[in-house]
């Protein structure tokens, strides 16, 4: 009998969601957001070079800087125009090659080449800075190597003396520095959590408010568990297919994705129970959760590390299932960790899910007066009678 009730509720909700696929709004949202990342990383950002020297060396430097795929060099005759254009968002950076650049280069005098990037786009500016510095360092090494060779040193001696220690910096887990790879692990987990929270609280409230009165717990269980297969399907699309579409690293197998998202979905369902009992009105749920997505995304730790947040903010971050899930899914899917390396994340998701669900049940019991009866029944006084 219990199973029939469970199955009927499960089937009814599944069919309703298949007939009215509003959950596909999530996919539309992801598709629209992905359009920004179609270029993969930044490329061809307009950068101005103001050449005040007009010498062979300055032209050589411009040619070398233009080899970077990330930028597209435009020559400006004067600095004022270039700075006006960077102010008007027509340029991303301005490099000024000073007067007497070549002359001072040949004399071995100290020269500083000022370069200014638009720091309002923090990530892009960091990438351009790194790229320019590395290109410039290579250019300078070649120039110095020529000077040393001209003074009679052999190629091997030049090599050793110029660079006694070879410096190598290797980016891991995100070859080519894809913007999508940086943003999406946190963003997709946040979207999955947000959409499931909304739908499960709506389902819960709709069931509680049914004209026939509040149905038995098994109906709730059947209805809410019907959401899991749909969100598991979404997680396969988002964590399995989407990295492939956007061209960033994807390592987890299908069973691994399911194994990671299943406890995450349970934790979110637990949180949904607590929110349902705390907020109670569908409108209030929308008017609260919709605004929390941006902070939840920032709290995931992918854009800004948790170490840089105050302790009370860290506590909030750690109370969210999305923080643990982002760490786990990014770890397995992009950084090659195994599920066994993430047992603590899995454990925390289960603990959070149970904690929120029990807290939600407790609040419901208090509201309905059942908690008082329960404590009365199981009090010490009753026990010793």
């Amino acid at each position, binding site marked *: 009998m219990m199973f029939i009730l469970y199955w009927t509720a499960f089937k009814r909700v599944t069919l309703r969601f298949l007939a009215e696929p509003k959950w596909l*709004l999530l996919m*539309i949202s*992801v598709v*629209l*957001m992905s359009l*920004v*990342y*179609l270029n993969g990383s930044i490329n061809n*950002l307009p950068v101005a070079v103001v050449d005040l020297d007009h010498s062979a060396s300055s032209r050589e430097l411009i040619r070398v800087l233009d080899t970077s795929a990330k930028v597209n060099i435009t020559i400006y005759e004067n600095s004022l125009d270039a700075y006006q254009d960077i102010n008007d*968002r027509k340029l991303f950076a301005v490099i000024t090659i000073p007067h007497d650049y070549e002359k001072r*280069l040949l004399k*071995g005098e*100290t*020269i*500083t080449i*000022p370069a*200014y990037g638009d*720091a*309002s*786009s*923090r990530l892009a500016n*960091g990438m351009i800075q790194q790229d320019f*510095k590395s290109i410039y360092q290579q250019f300078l090494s070649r120039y*110095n190597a020529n*000077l*040393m060779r001209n*003074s009679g040193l052999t190629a091997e001696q030049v090599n*050793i*003396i110029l660079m*006694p*220690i070879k*410096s*190598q910096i*290797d*980016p*891991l887990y*995100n070859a080519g520095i894809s*913007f999508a790879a*940086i943003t999406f692990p946190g963003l997709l987990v946040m979207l999955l959590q947000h959409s499931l929270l*909304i739908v499960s609280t*709506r389902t819960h409230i709709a069931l509680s408010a049914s004209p026939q009165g509040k149905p038995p717990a098994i109906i709730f269980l059947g209805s809410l568990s019907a959401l899991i297969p749909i969100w598991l399907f979404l997680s396969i699309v988002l964590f399995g297919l989407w990295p492939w579409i956007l061209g960033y690293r994807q390592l987890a197998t299908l069973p691994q994705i399911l194994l990671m998202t299943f406890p995450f979905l349970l934790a979110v369902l637990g949180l949904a129970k607590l929110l349902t009992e705390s907020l109670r009105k*569908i*409108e209030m749920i*929308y*008017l*609260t959760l919709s*605004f*929390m997505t*941006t*902070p939840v*995304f*920032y709290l995931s730790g992918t854009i*800004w*590390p948790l170490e*840089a947040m*105050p302790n009370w*903010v860290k506590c909030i971050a750690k109370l969210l299932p999305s923080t643990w899930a982002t760490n786990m899914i990014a*770890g397995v899917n992009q*950084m090659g*960790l195994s599920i066994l390396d993430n047992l603590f994340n899995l454990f925390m998701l289960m603990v959070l899910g149970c904690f929120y669900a029990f807290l939600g049940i407790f609040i419901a019991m208090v509201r309905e007066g059942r908690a008082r009866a329960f404590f009365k029944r199981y009090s010490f006084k009753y026990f010793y009678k």
Partner: protein
Amino acid sequence: MDLRELAVVFFKRFKAAFDDELQFIFRRFTHHWLLWILPLLIFVLIGNIFSQGVLYDLPVGVVDQDKSVLSKTIIRDLNAGAHANIIDYEDSLNQAEKSLAKANIYALLYIPPNFEADVLAGRQPTPIFYYNALYYSAGLYSIMDYSGLIAQLNSELRILLAAKAGLAIPKLVQANLNYDGLFNASGNSMYFQQFSAMVHLIQLFVVALTIHVLGKLPRKTRLSYPFILGKLAPYTLWYTMLLIFEIALLVLYSQARVSGNPFSMLIVGFFYVIAAQSLGILLFTFTRSIIDAYSFIGLLVGLALTYSGVVVPELSMPWIARFISSIEPLTYALNKLFDLFLRHASLLSVVKTCLILSSYPIIITFLVRKRLVKRLILEGTS
């Protein structure tokens, strides 16, 4: 009825609705929630997330297989730099790699065996500095001091090695590329992240409250445009003031300098709120219930966040993304407010932005002209 009479009637109805709404503005908890409680809570939360502003002392692992004076100098100097806080993994490269993948550390310096001996013998050893490019901000900041440190060591060792080999080194070129950030001299992330989040969230609050207010309009009153505008106008003023108040808080807290005219900010904020209200009217008109309208706010959140140009610069977006970005009022408002905050914005550019933002209510009025009143009546009967 001539034009003057029409204007008088319009104004009378507008004023009556405005005065009526003023009496109710703080009578509902939902209004308190959307007008100040939640905006300020989120303001405080986001402000605290980015309160450090610049990333210092990030955990960086070291596996030193040489343990020589030179390798220890590199580690000590890296630790003394602003961005790295060294965690020694002894010889356990595997454990350090795991920590890197688990984001317990954001970079890992590996110094090979015989490092110092190889340097002195001219064998050019290569210590490798790995960083987590997936957690890019933290990864990038944690390696920030390394290149300068190695360049410094190389220039010191160059003299030593040349003297040892009896070679005379010619005067080398001393040319530095000094790359700095404009419009954010301190490299502080707080301005940008909190400023953009604030402007972006105000749009969502305005859209949500507009839908809420339209859903609760009194049923008995004859619905007309001046009435609806009068009902929404108190919230236009409120959210404009809230935006300016939050910007002022941010400026005071971070001791930032506003390079533009604060009054221009107020004007841009006012038109931005009106544009956001018209988006709310559009969503309300073309959905069947207010809950359906609310569910589109989620879509707006992601889009506004992605297309605002804070994550991916507009100059680097593909054409389709630039087009979507250009139809979002947030893009214009955010850019102009940023300009007024940190760049230089002419009065003409402020006027241009206000004109663009005021085109939203005009276009949306045209789009909803046949449906809005019907939709309001439908809401009343549902």
